[in-house]
């Protein structure tokens, strides 16, 4: 009995101790981040000049403002800022040379030598390194697309509507591909116009609303790993039937589009209606129906042939 009480007491002590340490750690991290947010959480920040004792107010550069409530909604909400940023940033004023230091990347925690219970991103990293975005000379990292201070990653539509997911995912691409200033941070090109480069698409704006960029610009979009292998624009899907024949609802919309478009053409209503070249893609892909019809037809022909033979045989 005494042994049992001892074990129970030890267990309770261990539990209390671990939760206290965890709480203390959280409090400490919150405290450290609080210090960071006191400046980086505001558009205007203030500090006391240690030499003159004057209180100075400065404007925080837009890129360095972190929205604290938004950050606390992300998966990394309990992280100390210095988990990713150099620890020397805890000293203020910050040393100017600190910006030359490489930040920790996602793979430092989510890779082979990272923290063990965390999901591994090695495969994502290797797919990314094959993509058009990767260049060893350029500063293109996970963070170029996924903002660690704001992003909540959705790999399924469990907690987000499809419409919102499409808009969210496309906004990642449009951050650079829809903004020349951002784009030029990564490229030497002086002009971007995605509306012009996609003007071959029927119902262009509808496609932008209903389809994610990665659906056409990656090989396997349903695989969150493979979807990081962004293809060069020349390899992007340009064949309508690639999507519109796999899914019958999409297939129908392409068929309707072709019929309506041909009806709008020259040659009068009747001509354009009957001479349209639309065809229900996929209707002839029903293997089961094709085979069944061939079997039935063969049986009918065999029966006719046998009947004809009997007629010849019994002819008087």
């Amino acid at each position: 009995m005494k042994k049992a009480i001892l074990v129970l007491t030890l267990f309770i002590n261990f539990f209390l101790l671990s939760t206290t340490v965890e709480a203390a750690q959280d409090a400490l991290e919150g405290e450290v981040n609080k210090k960071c947010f006191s400046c980086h959480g505001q558009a205007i920040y203030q500090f006391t000049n240690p030499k003159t004792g004057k209180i100075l107010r400065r404007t925080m550069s837009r890129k360095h403002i972190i929205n604290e409530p938004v950050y606390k909604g992300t998966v990394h909400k309990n992280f100390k800022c210095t988990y990713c940023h150099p620890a020397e940033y805890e000293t203020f004023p910050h040393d100017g040379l600190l910006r030359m230091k490489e930040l920790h990347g996602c793979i430092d925690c989510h890779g082979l030598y990272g923290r063990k219970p965390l999901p591994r991103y090695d495969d994502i990293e290797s797919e990314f390194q094959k993509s058009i975005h990767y260049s060893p000379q350029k500063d293109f990292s996970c963070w170029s697309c996924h903002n660690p201070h704001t992003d909540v990653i959705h790999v399924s539509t469990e907690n987000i509507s499809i419409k919102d997911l499409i808009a969210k995912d496309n906004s990642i691409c449009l951050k650079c591909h829809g903004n020349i200033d951002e784009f030029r941070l990564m490229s030497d090109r002086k002009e971007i116009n995605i509306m012009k480069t996609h003007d071959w698409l029927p119902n262009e704006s509808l496609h932008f609303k209903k389809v994610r960029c990665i659906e056409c610009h990656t090989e396997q979009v349903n695989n969150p790993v493979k979807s990081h292998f962004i293809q060069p624009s020349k390899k992007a899907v340009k064949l309508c039937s690639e999507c519109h024949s796999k899914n019958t609802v999409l297939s129908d919309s392409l068929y309707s589009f072709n019929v309506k478009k041909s009806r709008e053409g020259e040659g009068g209503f009747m001509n354009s209606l009957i001479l349209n070249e639309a065809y229900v893609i996929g209707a002839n892909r029903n293997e089961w129906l094709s085979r069944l019809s061939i079997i039935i037809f063969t049986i009918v022909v065999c029966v006719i042939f046998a009947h004809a033979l009997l007629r010849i045989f019994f002819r008087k």
Partner: protein
Amino acid sequence: MKLYLYPLWLRLWHWINAILCIVLIATGISLQYSNPDQPLLVPFDLAIMAHNIASAMLCFNYLGFLVGNIISGEIKQYHFRLKNLLEKILQQVRYYIWGMFRGEKSPFPPSKKSKFNPLQRMTYVSVMFVVMPLTIVSGTALLFPELIIHNVFETGGIYIAALFHSAIGFFISIFLTVHIYLCTFGPTIFSSFKGMLDGYHRSKE
């Protein structure tokens, strides 16, 4: 024996219908069992256009069939009574699979009053008043896709209409094959075909 059963309008309708059905079946097979890269019977693009043109003509021809039958009173040839219908049909079937080989006489020889035997009548009623309208309706819907429900339990409505149209078109092709074979049952192999040219039904008796 010769019996004048097929007036000129009916013969005209019949041959136009036959040509259009053959065009529709040939182009339909080209669409169903091939793809643009591997054409079958008719090149794919030509098959789509020819199928659409022939189907529009078939619709007008079908209207001609209805109007001609109503005006001439021939529509009564398609009336049937349910009483003993199955028995009569089985009697005709028995003749085709047994009686004709033993030299028996046809149980329902054609007359001015009743051109068709019970099996023929039921088949023609089904084909002309059920199958043909369904084919025309589903085909017309495919020319006006906005009339079709877009999403039927996560399956495209147009896709379903296309499958239905193909399936029903297939049964018309089966009907045509059997119909042509049965037309060889006259006194000579070609006498029924000749009858549809000059209007006279020929029989052995």
